[in-house]
């Protein structure tokens, strides 16, 4: 069966316009099969004979915010109730429920009076709140994955993250604007033509921003694309739960699973937040904190600065007069001990000497590692080993 996917952003209060649009599509030979999407925007049409189908769009508040495509018992009951009146349920994406009938129904679902208007206003306000807070959750999740991966691939985190926020804010505000306009401008509804135009604008904005986001990350384009595919797969997984598994028969089980899932997300976000705030603090202070740089090893030339991971940073330097060495600064996080053990394990460092907070290790290729709290220096050139040890002796003599 030939299918057509339409990205259309209809809002709860635009039900009349949506009815018109769906009927027009049916006249052209496209029958609505499903409303879909996390952002409630995808419509799936199926090819059929051009026919006259009357559509009725009902809006309400009885739906699950986290899983808008799921059905709860009272929703099922309501749909069955409307079926008696000749309204066949087609699909729902939460606030918008679409019914169809072959003949024009004598009775409307709701009477168009002042009470209904007031109800619509309440629904729109609730939807506005949902649309403010739900994307926030997705932003946190997205940011969480995004920063982790970008850190991992050594991208310039500040530019990319800054752009990510602009990207999200633009789309988010464009989503919220119609609600505010409707609530403020005395229930003025866009015409169908303008709704289509609005949708195209939103799509164009999303595409252009995505392209420029990729452009910003040109060094890591391939790797970040993989990340995006992973994010999309996770989003797809959530929609899969939403559509198939989250039925009201397994309500308790699903509630527990959802609770665990969101508990985990909250936990990971908090962890990320804690780690990240520490990281920023350390980057700023790193210049001042060069605690064990010795007089004979003043840095002459910094050849590279790397954010090794979320947990440590590495400054690679080369001094023409002496030798090259690596300066490692461990972040003050929960995983500090683990990172330290990992670095020591890499070159099979063995402890040579220890004195008042300063520990000296010797590695496989005669490398020398001096550690003090969170800071480490690795000397790659063995020729200067003796010189360094002499320096340390002098350093400690001056200290005491």
């Amino acid at each position, binding site marked *: 069966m030939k299918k057509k996917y339409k990205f259309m952003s209809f809002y709860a209060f635009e039900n009349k316009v949506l009815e018109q649009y769906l009927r027009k599509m049916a006249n052209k030979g496209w029958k609505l099969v499903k409303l879909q999407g996390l952002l409630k925007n995808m419509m799936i049409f199926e090819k059929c004979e051009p026919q006259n189908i009357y559509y009725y769009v009902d809006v309400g508040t009885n739906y699950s915010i986290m899983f808008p495509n799921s059905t709860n018992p009272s929703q099922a*009951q309501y749909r069955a109730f409307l079926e008696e009146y000749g309204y066949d349920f087609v699909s729902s994406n939460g606030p918008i429920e679409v019914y169809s009938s072959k003949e024009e129904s004598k009775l409307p*679902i709701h009477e168009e009076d002042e009470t209904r208007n007031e109800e619509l206003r309440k629904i729109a306000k609730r939807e506005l709140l949902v649309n403010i807070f739900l994307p926030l959750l997705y932003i946190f999740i997205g940011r969480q994955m995004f920063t982790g991966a970008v850190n991992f691939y050594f991208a310039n985190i500040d530019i990319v993250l800054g752009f990510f926020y602009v990207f999200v804010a633009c789309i988010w505000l464009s989503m919220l604007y119609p609600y505010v306009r409707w609530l403020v401008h005395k229930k003025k509804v866009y015409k169908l033509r303008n709704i289509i135009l609005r949708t195209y604008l939103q799509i164009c904005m999303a595409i252009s921003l995505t392209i420029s986001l990729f452009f910003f990350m040109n060094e890591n384009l391939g790797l970040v694309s993989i990340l995006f595919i992973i994010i999309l797969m996770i989003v797809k997984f959530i929609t899969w739960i939403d559509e198939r598994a989250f039925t009201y028969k397994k309500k308790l089980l699903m509630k527990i699973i959802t609770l665990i899932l969101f508990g985990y997300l909250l936990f990971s976000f908090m962890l990320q937040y804690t780690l990240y705030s520490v990281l920023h603090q350390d980057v700023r202070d790193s210049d001042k904190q060069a605690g064990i740089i010795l007089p004979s090893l003043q840095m002459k030339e910094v050849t590279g600065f790397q954010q090794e991971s979320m947990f440590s940073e590495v400054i690679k330097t080369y001094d023409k007069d002496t030798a090259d060495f690596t300066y490692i600064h461990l972040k003050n996080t929960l995983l500090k001990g683990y990172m330290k053990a990992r670095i020591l394990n890499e070159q099979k460092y063995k402890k040579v000497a220890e004195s008042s907070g300063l520990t000296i290790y010797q590695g496989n290729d005669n490398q020398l590692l001096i550690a003090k709290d969170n800071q480490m220096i690795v000397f790659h050139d063995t020729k200067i080993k003796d010189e360094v040890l002499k320096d340390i002796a002098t350093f400690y003599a001056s200290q005491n």
Partner: protein
Amino acid sequence: MPRKQLDTLTEPMYYTLIALLNPRCGVEITDFVLALTSDRVCLVPGTLYTMLSKFESENIIEEVHVEGRRRTYVITGKGKAMLKEEYIRLKKMITEGEPWLSRYKDE
């Protein structure tokens, strides 16, 4: 939180309860009320559904029969008492207004 009891019935509520003196389902209620009031009071499904669930939660009506997905309701003792009270109240309103309003009878 205790729910506020329904004290007076609105016009749609009154006719719905009358319709439910015999077991009826949604469409039958609408049709009955349309016939009874000669198309004056039209109970649209959206409003009727909310009303029925409210009545059911207050034990004014009860579900008697489920045939497929069609649910049939009937009024309970509590509902009958409320309807009777309402009937007496409405009648009282008519009698009390009679001396002043009877001259409009012919218009």
